[in-house]
């Protein structure tokens, strides 16, 4: 065995060089460091996905079923008032939001898996801000969600949905999809940190997903709901994601809440959840 003294010497560590000046500079350096670490965590997940993308293809089945079977049947029934929009057009952004929700809400399973091994512990012992660990993972859920967006767009094209191709609209869709995934994957991470076992998590995941989905405007407009459900739908972040997607994805789509409110709420919820998640995440190692 050949070992060199220089291979691993003590005292080789160093604190990152202090930023010149004070206050503002230091804060700036901290922000840059935070963003860099967040991207490293996202890169890690991206590399994993690149090694084994099969998961993403099996995920395509569910939105296909919803659009082709459910969408086609309800288009014929004409039971749901969607104004000038054909029902399949109305449904497509809803199903996009649903795929994002489903791919994000079971994200906590990966956290529990990493906890049952020793991965979480090693990340927590590294000098990485907790919020960067949480946000990095959330962004990677956003990346997975974007692959779902690709699939839903393909399906929508096949079904003759009038999709908007304006670059600004596409950019908006990407933003809404990533923000939605950040919200729901971080929510999922928080639950995982609380329940800590796979069995309990699966139970709770099932219980949460369906209410979030049905108590939203994903497959019918808020207007047709009974009053109490309208209140819940208004409080459900998924409704704002769907609303934004409906106005951005479709040719001539309109937002009923206003895009500013949609994005404002998604951003606010994401920020609060990341902060709460950063508080809960270290608990998962205990």
């Amino acid at each position, binding site marked *: 065995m050949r070992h*060199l003294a220089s291979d691993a*010497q003590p005292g080789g560590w160093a604190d990152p060089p202090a930023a010149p000046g004070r206050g503002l500079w230091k804060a700036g350096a901290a922000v840059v460091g935070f963003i860099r670490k967040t991207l490293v965590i996202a890169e890690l997940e991206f590399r994993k996905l690149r090694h084994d993308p099969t998961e993403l293809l099996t995920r395509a089945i569910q939105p296909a079923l919803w659009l082709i079977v459910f969408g086609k049947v309800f288009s014929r029934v004409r039971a749901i008032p969607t104004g000038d929009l054909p029902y399949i057009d109305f449904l497509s952004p809803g199903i996009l939001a649903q795929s994002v929700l489903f791919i994000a809400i079971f994200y906590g399973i990966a956290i529990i898996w990493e906890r049952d091994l*020793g991965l979480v512990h090693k990340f927590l012992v590294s*000098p990485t801000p907790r919020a960067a660990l949480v946000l990095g993972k959330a962004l990677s859920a956003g990346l997975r969600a974007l692959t779902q967006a690709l699939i839903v767009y393909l399906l929508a094209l096949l079904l003759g949905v009038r999709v908007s191709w304006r670059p600004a609209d596409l950019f908006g869709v990407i933003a809404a999809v990533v923000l939605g995934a950040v919200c729901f994957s971080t929510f999922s991470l928080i639950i995982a940190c609380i329940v800590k076992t796979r069995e309990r998590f699966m139970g709770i995941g099932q219980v949460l997903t369906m209410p979030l989905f049905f108590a939203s405007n994903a497959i019918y407009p808020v207007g047709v709901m009974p009053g109490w459900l309208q209140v819940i739908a208004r409080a459900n972040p998924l409704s704002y994601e769907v609303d934004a997607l409906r106005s951005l994805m479709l040719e001539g789509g309109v937002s009923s809440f206003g895009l500013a409110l949609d994005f404002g709420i998604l951003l606010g919820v994401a920020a609060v959840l990341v902060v709460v998640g950063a508080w809960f995440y270290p608990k998962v*190692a205990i």
Partner: protein
Amino acid sequence: MAILRTEDLTRAFGPILAVDRLTLSVEPGEVFGLLGPNGAGKTTTIKMLTTLLPPTSGRAEVAGFDVRRQQARVRRRIGYVPQLISADGALTGYENLLIFAKLYDIPRAEREGRIRRALGFMQLEDSADRLVKQYSGGMIRRLEIAQSILHRPEILFMDEPTVGLDPGARRIVWEHIRALRDNAGTTIFLTTHLMEEADELCGRVAIMHLGRIVALGSPSELKQAVGGEAVTLDDVFIHFTGNALDSGGTFRETSRERRTARRLG
């Protein structure tokens, strides 16, 4: 100047004292072993020293910084190899190292060189671009050690470094730990329940039982204290802990450990 010092370090889980007023110090360059049956409080101690778990009371200083109030500084100066698998099976060996090189702020210009050297040091160059899920248990352990020394820690914490490895792989990991101490002078703090491991590696050992240290000294000192020529560290251990067989280890811990052992095997 001790590189690690604890004073009445205590951690309670509800009414149970997992670690009970632990006081010890470790000198730079030492290989220090914390020895005890499952459930003795070894892992809880390591989690407190590595900032993963806040102590209930008492103090601990690692590399000159307080583990509770100066967490960020402690984290930059320590390396940690958890008991369970901590390399990512879905990435290659090289990628596992790359991610940690970035998380530890190793400058871009030095990154490749350090990764290559760590791979060489652990004799993993040939498998660097294979997915870790295809590695053997001994290779995974060596990769995890490589990950933990990339940033050249002053002190390396290893929780049961050879659990679940077969005797051959165990010997190889031991050789690497010794090389790390001899060539790099890294201080090593490890836990184990294997007497042979403590005898092979450690300059000093503390025997831990039900959260407390019941004996402390070099393996030969401890053997002498118990008396007789033919004494092994096993005898010392039983002398100080009574019958260790019935103590510790919940169902959950055991099932986790076996699962890990199976994956590592």
